[in-house]
């Protein structure tokens, strides 16, 4: 069956197969557009293909810019890949939504009450309304949390439910998300992108605003956080880190909610109080919105092998000193086994019938129920009752007689660990396929993840919107992002009496709202920014040096060596960039591409990307993109092993990208402590490099020729200035002046020393340290450096060499100072950044 031909949008739907066994979001049973889609579809039709292409580009660009990625584990393509967002929104009518939202809010209330009972009196178990096995057998029933009453008695602050629409048009519950529901951030991001792609229909259709939902979440956390009177509560978002599949969302959500994003190691518990480690010391944390799973939150009392949690967190929770949202142990309700019991539980706890129907589910722990399920297995789907037993759902209709028999035997061995569920024929949403320009709309299975947040009146506020997820392939039985599915923005239309919402906008900020500093930087972040600075500069320096050597090597045809090339190669050996004794060509290529070689460019770039990825949340989009660019170049390095010319070309491109980074660092970042440490890292690295190389040359090639001095100037990025000033081949005294003593040259040693002294002075004043003075002393000595001693004199070359050695010693002192101060900073500001580990005695 294909959609009815008299549609104006018929062309767009030419490929749309109308499977009569399923509900279609867009079309009714006769193939006509449903009323609430008509306006939107007409708009698309009228705009034509060109406009849709334009919208697709807009969406793709926006996603790229936001850096939206969805990490799929074990994905051969790498850990990051663009995350699919369909161009067409899911559209839901006002009336239908009201019913659905009331059901979601009620379900959240019931589940919250169930948690309070399970971690309290356990009446539901004593009265036989819930099977103990289903609770005590769940890895997320946390015994150490038994008896804890969270602030305000609330366990469930943020709740999500996965819903699927059956062929009868009703929404059915497929799964509850109670411990750390993901996806609300993606819903917000989808809204931001898709509403901009369709500004007119968005306004005309009066789509409801979802911003209020996130404000409600902020308010709830603030209200329930146990702050002392007069103290303004600090809330943080706790992430397992960047390897988590939804890390992007954590970054996005933290910004949206205005909370620092922290990892377990950024927090510490002292005397049952949680603190965040910052540059300025410890700051009390009152609320933790967590994205770390229940049992990973405290290695002391929960899973001892967790490196993600905060040792002692549970004690702080028990003492009522911190709010954890959702309450620890709330994951116990993530079990399809509970579905069958909830109607009676709802009646008992709320005194009203459960509104939302759930997919028919048989928990096999009860013999008569199990017998029934085993009989019907061929048409059901079998899942573990406890989600921590990671096993894929098994679809009865796909199993042969023999495999069904095996499955029956497996269930009979441990029946309480299994559920059987009715298969849902998921409803179909229209999806826009870019590659079929003429007939782009096809049906794909869709599910809805709706969200509710606890409110002050003891109830729940439901987000008027959702994360709609779509299957990757036609006819899919399940919808899973990890299997390459995608998502949609979800438009809930406003009821007639509510005024039309405008596309998302912010409340106007007044002068009172002005914030000029961000004092919640975790030390770990600062440390990584410091290393971003050092590695970025080191990448640039290494690239310049390799370019100098490679270009000279190519120019001389690889055979004849000039003194300048020999000196450059020796410098590389001194810096342990190339191994002594290895053939030059081979050693040079390895210095560029071999990421196992200690100081190779590939390795330095790896270090840069690693540190940068640790602070991804702090970097601007441009900065991040610049780094991605470098990563691509680094990956290309390995492939282009053979050709020197190409390698040289590559070095030029890497240099371009690294110089862009320097631009970001010096111009685009806010001057906070993070920036200060990044710049200090850069200056320390630059000072060391220029001082080291120059000192080495002064000691070992005191009478360098013009060609050698030329590449020295090139290394310090000062060749153009030199040419403008002297209009001649480089000579020793003016060259040294420019790269060592000239206070106006941003690459000179003295310039680094002065800048370091200036930045460190701010820190010294705050932390009672004395780092600035050491660089000021170096700068003073450089100012006093007498280059006249290098002039041809009556006393001959021996004395001149001695003068060169004296300058070399001064530069060596400068480099040594930089190393010492770097260590001192690390000790003072980062040393408490350490990984704790569990120990169990027998």
């Amino acid at each position: 069956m294909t959609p009815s031909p008299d549609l104006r949008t018929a062309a767009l739907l030419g490929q749309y197969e109308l499977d009569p066994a399923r509900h279609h979001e867009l079309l009714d049973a006769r193939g006509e557009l449903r009323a609430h889609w008509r306006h939107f579809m007409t708009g698309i039709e009228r705009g034509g293909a060109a406009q849709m292409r334009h919208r697709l580009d807009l969406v793709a660009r926006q996603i790229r810019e936001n850096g939206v990625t969805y990490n799929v584990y074990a994905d051969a393509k790498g850990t990051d890949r663009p995350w699919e967002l369909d161009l067409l929104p899911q559209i839901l009518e006002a009336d239908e939504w009201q019913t659905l939202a009331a059901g979601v809010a009620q379900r959240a209330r019931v589940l919250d009450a169930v948690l309070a009972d399970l971690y309290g009196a356990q009446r539901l178990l004593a009265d036989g309304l819930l099977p103990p096995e289903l609770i005590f057998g769940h890895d997320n029933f946390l015994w150490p949390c038994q008896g804890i009453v969270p602030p305000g008695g609330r366990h469930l602050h943020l709740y999500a439910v996965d819903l699927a629409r059956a062929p009868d048009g009703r929404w059915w519950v497929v799964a509850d998300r109670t411990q750390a529901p993901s996806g609300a951030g993606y819903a917000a991001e989808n809204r931001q992108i898709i509403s901009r792609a369709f500004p007119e229909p968005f306004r005309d259709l009066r789509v409801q605003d979802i911003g209020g939902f996130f404000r409600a979440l902020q308010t709830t956390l603030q209200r329930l956080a146990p702050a002392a009177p007069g103290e303004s509560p600090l809330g943080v978002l706790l992430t397992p880190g960047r390897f988590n599949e939804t890390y992007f969302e954590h970054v996005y959500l933290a910004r949206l909610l205005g909370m620092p994003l922290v990892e377990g190691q950024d927090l510490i518990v002292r005397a049952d109080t949680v603190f965040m480690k910052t540059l300025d010391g410890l700051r009390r944390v009152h609320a933790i919105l967590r994205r770390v799973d229940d049992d990973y939150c405290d290695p002391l009392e929960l899973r001892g092998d967790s490196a993600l949690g905060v040792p002692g967190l549970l004690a702080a929770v028990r003492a009522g000193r911190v709010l954890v949202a959702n309450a620890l142990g709330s994951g116990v309700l993530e079990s399809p086994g509970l579905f069958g019991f909830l109607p009676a539980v709802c009646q008992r706890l709320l005194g009203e019938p459960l509104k939302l129907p759930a997919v028919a589910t048989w928990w096999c722990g009860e013999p008569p129920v199990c017998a029934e399920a085993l009989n019907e297995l061929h048409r059901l789907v079998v899942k573990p009752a406890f989600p921590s037993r990671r096993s894929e759902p098994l679809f009865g209709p796909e199993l042969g007689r023999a495999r069904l028999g095996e499955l029956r035997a497996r269930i009979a061995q441990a029946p309480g660990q299994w559920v059987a569920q009715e298969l849902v024929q998921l409803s179909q949403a229209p999806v826009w396929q870019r590659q079929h320009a003429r007939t782009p709309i096809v049906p794909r299975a869709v599910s809805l993840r709706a969200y509710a947040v606890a409110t002050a009146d003891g109830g729940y506020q439901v987000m008027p919107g959702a994360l709609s997820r779509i299957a990757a392939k036609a006819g899919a039985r399940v919808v899973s992002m990890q299997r390459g599915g995608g998502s949609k923005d979800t438009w809930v239309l406003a009821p007639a009496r509510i005024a039309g919402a405008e596309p998302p906008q912010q409340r106007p900020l007044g002068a009172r709202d002005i914030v000029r500093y961000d004092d919640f930087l975790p030390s770990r972040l600062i440390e990584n920014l410091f290393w971003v600075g050092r590695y970025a500069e080191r990448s640039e320096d290494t690239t310049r040096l390799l370019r100098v050597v490679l270009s000279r090597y190519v120019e001389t045809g690889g055979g004849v060596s000039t003194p300048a090339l020999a000196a450059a190669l020796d410098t590389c050996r001194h810096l342990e960039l190339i191994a002594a004794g290895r053939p030059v060509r081979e050693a040079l290529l390895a210095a560029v591409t071999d990421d196992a070689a200690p100081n190779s460019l590939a390795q330095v770039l790896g270090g840069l990307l690693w540190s940068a990825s640790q602070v991804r949340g702090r970097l601007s989009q441009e900065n991040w993109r610049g780094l991605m660019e470098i990563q691509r170049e680094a990956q290309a390095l390995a492939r282009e092993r053979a050709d020197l010319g190409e390698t040289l070309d590559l070095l030029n491109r890497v240099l371009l990208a690294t110089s862009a980074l320097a631009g970001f660092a010096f111009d685009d970042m806010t001057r906070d402590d993070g920036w200060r440490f990044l710049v200090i890292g850069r200056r320390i690295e630059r000072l060391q490099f220029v001082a080291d190389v120059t000192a080495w040359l002064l000691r070992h090639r005191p009478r360098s020729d013009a060609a050698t001095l030329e590449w020295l100037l090139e290394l310090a990025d000062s060749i153009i200035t030199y040419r403008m000033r002297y209009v001649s081949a480089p000579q020793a005294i003016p060259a040294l002046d420019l790269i060592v003593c000239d206070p106006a040259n941003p690459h000179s040693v003295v310039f680094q020393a002065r800048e370091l002294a200036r930045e460190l002075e701010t820190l010294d004043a705050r932390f009672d340290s004395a780092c600035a003075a050491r660089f000021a002393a170096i700068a003073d000595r450089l100012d006093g450096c007498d280059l006249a001693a290098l002039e041809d004199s009556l006393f001959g070359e021996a004395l001149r060499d001695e003068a060169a050695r004296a300058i070399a010693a001064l530069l060596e002192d400068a480099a040594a100072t930089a190393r010492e101060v770097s260590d001192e900073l690390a000790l003072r500001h980062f040393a408490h950044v350490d990984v704790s580990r569990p120990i169990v005695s027998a």
Partner: protein
Amino acid sequence: MNARPLPRRAAARYRVVHETEYRYSSTVSVSRQAMHLAPRACARQRTLDHRLTIDPLPTYRQEGVDCFGNPLTRIEIDHPHRALLVVAESDVTITARGDLRDPADSPAWESVAEHHAYRAGRAPDAAALQACRFRADSPFVRAGTELIDFAHPYFAPGTPLLVAVHRLMHAIHRQFRFDTEATQIATPLLEVLAQRRGVCQDFAHLMIGCLRALGLPARYVSGYLLTAPPPGQPRLVGADASHAWVSVHCPRNGWVDFDPTNDVLPDLGHVTIAWGRDFGDVSPLRGVILGGGAHELDVRVTVLPLG
């Protein structure tokens, strides 16, 4: 079952000294420990005196009870240290186990399993609900087919519960070798089963796993054995260290202890410290430290009769 009645005393008094010493190769800046070192009071056992000495002195210390009713001390040490010494001294009295009824007089094991299973509309009695805490899988004890297969010969249909559990205890004792080298704290049950060797902890976990796989509630008991046996009795395996055994729930007899390592029913010679689902719930010292490098651990336990 051939437990020939020995001349029995009505009660015994002991002094238990449990010393734990950590020496770290580098400085520990923060240490946080949760300690199960004080004997819990139970039907046959009373604590007369308990002293806990900790060096260095904790910055923060809190006495409490864990979720299974065991005494638990939590400490925090916020200053740098290179060693940690914890000495727990406890004086306890134990009264003799009243003679068990004839094990054959316990209900058939299937009916016990059924008694603890969920049936729609049936409210479990309080004791059964309590017992259900120890009937599901726990982190160190995952029931599985292999465990059912192992237990199967001893659980013929209709066998009285305590008779069957006795047989299972004999079987473990007979078929497994005590070997302190064979396993570590986290050795999975199936590996223990395959190797047929382990320590008291492993045997307790194995027996608990078998019982739970059959639907029977079983808990892990940690404690100590008398260091030197009374004259004329053999020295038991597992003295001089923490010991572990098993308790099974019988609707008629309540919780009944079994020690598969020694093939005995614990009586005057077993001092109970704590119980839980498995070792993880009751480990004597569980901690998280910052720094420390490599560490050496010494544990010394002595249990001496008091006058």
